[in-house]
């Protein structure tokens, strides 16, 4: 963050230093202005596409705005949608900061969802105060193991994690497909889904009027913890050092392999937790296509804020709101929902281009 911020310097002195002010300006530009600009540009291109294909831009974006801020239900919906994105984004931020290119959050999400569902279905008699935490923890660790697998393959066998995590995605999704048609299929044996989890395992809603549940609070807490770990602990320091320059980190006596494996483990864990929360808080069952691509959206969520775990709360909310709003936009302005994919892709592309136009490669 701010490079010259030292303990004991008074704020007044600081503000008088030109270096500090330029630093602040730079941070502001990088972390606030650039994301906002990228969103404006992406929406601008989206508007061009809309009007070129015969839609009323004002009506479409008006419906989008309504879909996000139009009612308490809609606002709550944005929070609900952001929950898995914040969790996955946080994990991806940890992994990317350490130079571990985890493309496998999708598979880790499924691993956690399957494990969480298994606990909820098997130990249905547990009281909520014990059952839900156990299910979430098991979800976390299953996802973490799935992530650590790719981490181990990387540090032990030097296998490129981009490829191994993609393979592990397909394997996890295939296995869930097997579970919901085989050993974990509903008692009726009709649909490819598990039975519904019992009421005591359902994560409660924060407000009675909207669907947002306590999983959102968990996501926020996880993002805060991840930030503290990353910036305030020796582990976080080594992870960042490895990501910045593995050779230098090695020379400085940091255990590169263990830092990277830990990053992979934690990253998979948050994705697994997201999966377990999605089942316990939203769907109540495990399905083969539980995720519409959260693992890939999570990458965007993390990158939008320069892989800063705390800020994934903001970007996660933005993407959650885009998703929730686009659903209403579809209903009220008849715009195909796939437009959101285009806008999301453009946001990433613009933000990255602006950031690098800035010619400041300091952040990894």
């Amino acid at each position, binding site marked *: 963050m701010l490079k010259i911020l030292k303990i004991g310097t008074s704020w007044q002195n600081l503000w008088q230093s030109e270096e500090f002010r330029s630093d602040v300006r730079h941070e502001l*530009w990088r972390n606030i202005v650039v994301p906002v*600009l990228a969103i*404006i*540009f992406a*929406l*601008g291109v989206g*508007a061009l596409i809309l009007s070129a294909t015969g839609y009323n*831009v*004002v*009506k479409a*974006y*008006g419906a989008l705005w309504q879909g996000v801020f139009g*009612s308490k*239900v809609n606002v709550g*919906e944005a929070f*609900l*949608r952001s929950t898995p994105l914040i969790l996955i984004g946080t994990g991806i931020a940890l992994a990317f900061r350490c130079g571990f290119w985890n493309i496998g959050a999708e598979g880790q999400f499924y691993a956690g969802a399957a494990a969480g569902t298994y606990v909820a279905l098997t130990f249905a008699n547990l009281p909520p105060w014990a059952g839900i935490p156990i299910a979430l923890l098991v979800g976390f660790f299953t996802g973490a193991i799935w992530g650590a697998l790719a981490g181990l393959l990387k540090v032990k066998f030097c296998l490129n994690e981009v490829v191994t995590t993609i393979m592990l995605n397909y394997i996890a999704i295939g296995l869930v*497909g097997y579970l919901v*048609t085989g050993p974990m299929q509903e008692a*009726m044996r*009709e*649909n*490819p*889904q598990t039975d*519904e989890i019992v009421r005591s395992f359902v994560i409660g809603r924060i407000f009675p009027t909207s*669907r947002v549940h306590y999983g959102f609070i968990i996501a926020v807490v996880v993002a805060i913890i991840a930030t503290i770990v990353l910036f305030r602990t020796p582990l976080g320091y080594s992870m960042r050092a490895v990501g910045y320059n593995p050779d230098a980190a090695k020379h400085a006596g940091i255990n590169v392999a263990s830092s990277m494996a830990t990053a992979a483990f934690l990253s998979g864990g948050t994705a697994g937790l997201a999966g377990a929360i*999605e089942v316990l808080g*939203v*769907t*109540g*069952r495990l*399905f*083969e*296509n*539980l*995720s*519409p691509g959260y693992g890939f959206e999570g990458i965007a969520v993390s990158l939008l804020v320069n892989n800063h775990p705390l800020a994934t709360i903001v970007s996660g909310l933005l993407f959650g709101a885009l*998703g*929730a709003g686009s*659903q*209403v936009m*579809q*209903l*009220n302005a*008849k715009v*195909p*929902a*796939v437009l959101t994919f285009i806008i999301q892709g453009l946001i990433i592309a613009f933000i990255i281009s*602006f950031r690098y*136009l*800035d*010619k400041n490669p300091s952040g990894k």
Partner: protein
Amino acid sequence: MERKSYKLWVLVAALVIISMVLAQCAPAATPAPQQPTEKKFKVGLLHPSPITDAWSGIAYQALKRIEAELGAEIANVEIKSPAEREKGFIDFASQGYDLVIGHDFAMQDAAEKVSKDFPNTFFTTTGGSKFTDNYAPIDLIPGYKQALYAVGVMAGNITKTKKAVAFTMELPATKIPLEGFQAGFNSIPGNSCSMVILKDGNDVGAAKEAALQAIADGADILIANANIAGTGVLQAVAENEGKVWGIGTIGDQTSLAPKGVLVSATLNVSEALFSIAKAVKEGTMKGGQVRVFTVNDPGVYDFVYNPETADLVTDEMKALLQDTLNKIKSGEIKVE
């Protein structure tokens, strides 16, 4: 210096975009929520895939028919993830829609939950076993399974190699009806029909390859009920004309293999959904039940023959199919 100018340029561009949008906004500043003088009948549809594909396409056709014949105001929303289902129902119901159709068995939990909060809206889903006072799922599968059983019996008498292959996906709506076909085909001694599960309902190429493998294995009757991927199977049939025959599903698929399709067993979802909408409009629709459709429901299940293959599907064969169907209707043959 260089950095400054780039920032300036970007900011100016952003301003231009904002002002352009605002300029467009100005005349239409207050789009007052228009209150129609009389309340219109409103029907909403939630579908799990794009309306360009077969499964969601048939529901959309039904919706269009409801618009045309019942004068309803319609809207449709594509549901991309399980998290969106409940909100989809809430959105429609809170805007005063009279009927909301969820075109997916997996939407039943959401429909059940939301129906309790919106007693003035009627809910239905294609598939499902739960119900409430204002939610009744429709189940088209039993009737389609019966219809395909009858087709299976006929195909079992036409086959020369005694082998058929059915292509489907791991979804009850697609798989269970084909189990009917399988049972009908295998009811002729010496016949064997195997089932291939395709992973992806969009992957036409993979489905075609699967069909070519079936042909290489000696099957001469192919049937697919696998969303849009199923067209790949009939494409393989078309490329092996005179050697292999196909059976159309859901709609009339003769055009995909003009000389290869023996018969298309159509499922008129449109008719079923239309009848529900009509009942809701007239106030005669009853909740608290699963509306099960069987071959006894007129107009829902039908058979479209292909004149090009009349030498194989003789009148005798058509009579056999009809006879089987009658036996199912009378309960003499049980398809379960």
